[in-house]
């Protein structure tokens, strides 16, 4: 192609949502998103909530505190750890893979062409390894929340509240910032293996710290399970894409650009009045 380049080149300009969609349909996002879609399908086939009757079941209603200890034992008996773990990992694969598209691309680009897939696989084992271990505390918090809140709806609401509060808080931003840090990936031998694994594990740890609260939400959404997963993934993706920043208290979910439009409109209105 030759010619002059001008402001009107290549159509009339794309709206940001369309541009974002285009971005996600190209590398490095395309493959992780396809992978996540497959995992979502799998996740809906083997409904995690069917395997976790007390977490999501409608039975029970308000649970008195006196029965919590007994419930604990009942819970563990009715929620076999192996099944729970499997479903937990499928859910994570569906939700987390798109979030780590850029670090994955970094591992790929940092490795010899012949070893790229191996390096990515090792990186993923480190990343999901951390999340596997995290299943214990995160599910424990979920069960505790379910028992304390009484009903599923109340627990879901409480989880949303906790997640919003965590997203607003500067510590969450600090954790997210650390999830953007790149590390050395050795090119040869044992170094290449260890570095890819450690990079994945460290990223997993910071991801866990920044995302744990939002991960509680879909656990309580029995009917709208997939929808909740999608919503939470969208929120986490938006947070990740906002990139690192100076930690401070913020209004969660609403991007600053939207806020500014709202505030300048009120300013204008005030000026007119």
């Amino acid at each position, binding site marked *: 192609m030759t010619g002059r380049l*001008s*402001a009107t080149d*290549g159509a009339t300009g794309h709206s940001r949502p369309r541009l974002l969609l285009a971005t996600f349909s190209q590398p490095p996002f395309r493959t992780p998103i396809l992978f996540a879609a497959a995992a979502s399908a799998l996740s809906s086939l083997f409904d995690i909530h069917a395997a976790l009757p007390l977490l999501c079941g409608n039975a029970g209603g308000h649970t008195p505190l006196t029965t919590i200890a007994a419930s604990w034992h009942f819970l563990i008996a009715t929620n076999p750890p192996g099944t729970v773990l499997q479903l937990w990992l499928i859910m994570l694969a569906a939700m987390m893979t798109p979030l780590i598209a850029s670090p994955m691309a970094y591992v790929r680009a940092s490795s010899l062409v*012949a070893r790229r897939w191996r390096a990515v696989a090792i990186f993923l084992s480190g990343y999901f390894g951390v999340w596997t271990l995290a299943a214990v505390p995160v599910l424990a918090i979920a069960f505790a929340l379910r028992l304390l809140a009484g009903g599923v709806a109340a627990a879901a609401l409480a989880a949303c509240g906790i997640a919003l509060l965590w997203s607003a808080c500067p510590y969450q931003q600090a954790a997210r910032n650390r999830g*953007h840090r790149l590390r050395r990936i050795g090119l040869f031998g044992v170094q290449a293996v260890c570095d890819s694994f450690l990079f994945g594990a460290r990223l997993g740890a910071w991801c866990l710290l920044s995302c744990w609260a939002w991960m509680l939400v879909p656990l309580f959404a029995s009917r709208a399970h997939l929808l909740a997963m999608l919503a939470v993934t969208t929120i986490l993706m938006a947070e990740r894409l906002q*990139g690192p920043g100076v930690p401070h208290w913020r209004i969660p979910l609403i991007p600053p650009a939207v*806020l*500014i439009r709202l505030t*300048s409109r009120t*300013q204008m209105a005030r000026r007119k009045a």
Partner: protein
Amino acid sequence: MADQREDAWKLGAGWNDTLLWYAKAIIALKGRALTDRTSWRYLAAMHQFDQSLWMHQGIIDHTTALPAQADMDVAWNQCQHSSFYFLPWHRGYLARFEQIIAATIAALHGPTDWKLPYWNYLDATNPNARKIPQAFLEPYLPDGITRNPLEDVPRYGQKILAANPQLKIPDIDLTAMNVTKFTGIFSFGGSPTDFSNPDIGVRGQLENVPHGSVHILVGGAPPADVDFGYLSRFETAGLDPLFWLHHCNIDRLWAAWMTKPGVEMEVGQQWLDGPSDRAFAVPTVDGSGLETYTARDTLAGGKFYPDYDDLHAGTGVAALLGGARMADIVKGSPVMAEPTVIGANSETLTVGTAAVETAVRIAAQERTALVAAIGRTAPDAPADEQTFLQLENIRGKGVAGGLQVYVNSPAGADLPEDRFAGSAALFGLSSVSAVDGGHGGNGITLVFDISDLAKRLAAAGDFDPAHLRVKIVAAHSGGDADPITIDRVSVLRQ
């Protein structure tokens, strides 16, 4: 005054109308509150803001009211470095700044057609080119009593641009103008990204030299200078009136590069309309609100497209015959092949004040191809077969400094010129290394083209395809106590 941006040195020695009105407008802008979107400090904070640093430097104090948080989130800390948005973002930033200054001058009953001049430091036809224009050195305005805002800023470096061996920053030149691709790991404009402030970004060659070098050479940095001037940091650069003339010349170099036959300009949707996560923002000229823009607005026909009086003097771009103003641009293919890594060193490097050498091992399966590529003599080697040296994630607590890289230099302190691989002024080092800043904490990644150097080494019989010895010398304010770290030194091939 004219409708076009002009060379500051050609406006008349000492005080001239353009610079005098510039100074008067700055005085007006400095008088405005920080919450005013057209104030001097608000405009500088759009580049980068650091509350504690600004307090420490006396730019603000505890009583200074800040704009609304949302305003700061959208308009401040926007500067795009180490990505292909570097040039278009700064172009829009400059254009709106120019309009705000011009509107202020008009309101002061000055001329109505003020344009931002440029500092044409590489104009070989002008013996004064490398000197800071005189009006920036005068303590007072022509009235003899008003403090000159063009001079009244911390500036501790050179008054005449030259190499600074103490900072390991060589003399500036126009090598970057010879790079043909706008986008890429080794490119004129910077590496591609989908988002603002990418985690992984490589500086474009123009952003490195002369852009970064001039920032540090003029702003100054210890150990060569007593302190850091405003130009030496992202967070204060926009507070030096000279910043805008420097960037105007960088912007002009881009405009000149676009007229070179055969250059591959970026035309991807992502560059034109991105980044995907946000729109770039500037205040409206009256400061009543914010207005968005993208790279598209900085191209011919766009609202921020600049007009320069001359694209040849000091740009290295020859005048075209027949008065043609713009050559046809080869538009780069949307998906560009990037070089792949073929070798790397084995440990993270720590560079204090002493030179550090590291061995870069080339993968066994890549050695034959490497030898074949560099065996060709320069003229008949295909342009797409290139060898690069990459310094990944250079981080440091020191604010700024310089760094030089040599390949296969002999043992001892000697650093022969013919083994020189590349250099960089570490502009923004501490900002881009801070984990809790806006730049991701991944430091600076530099890529140097060592294709010709490798050929020279091979011709001299000093090229082992299994190992390259890379020597790095740096001068930075961290010294030995806070050395810079380099995650990896790698060799790439395309």
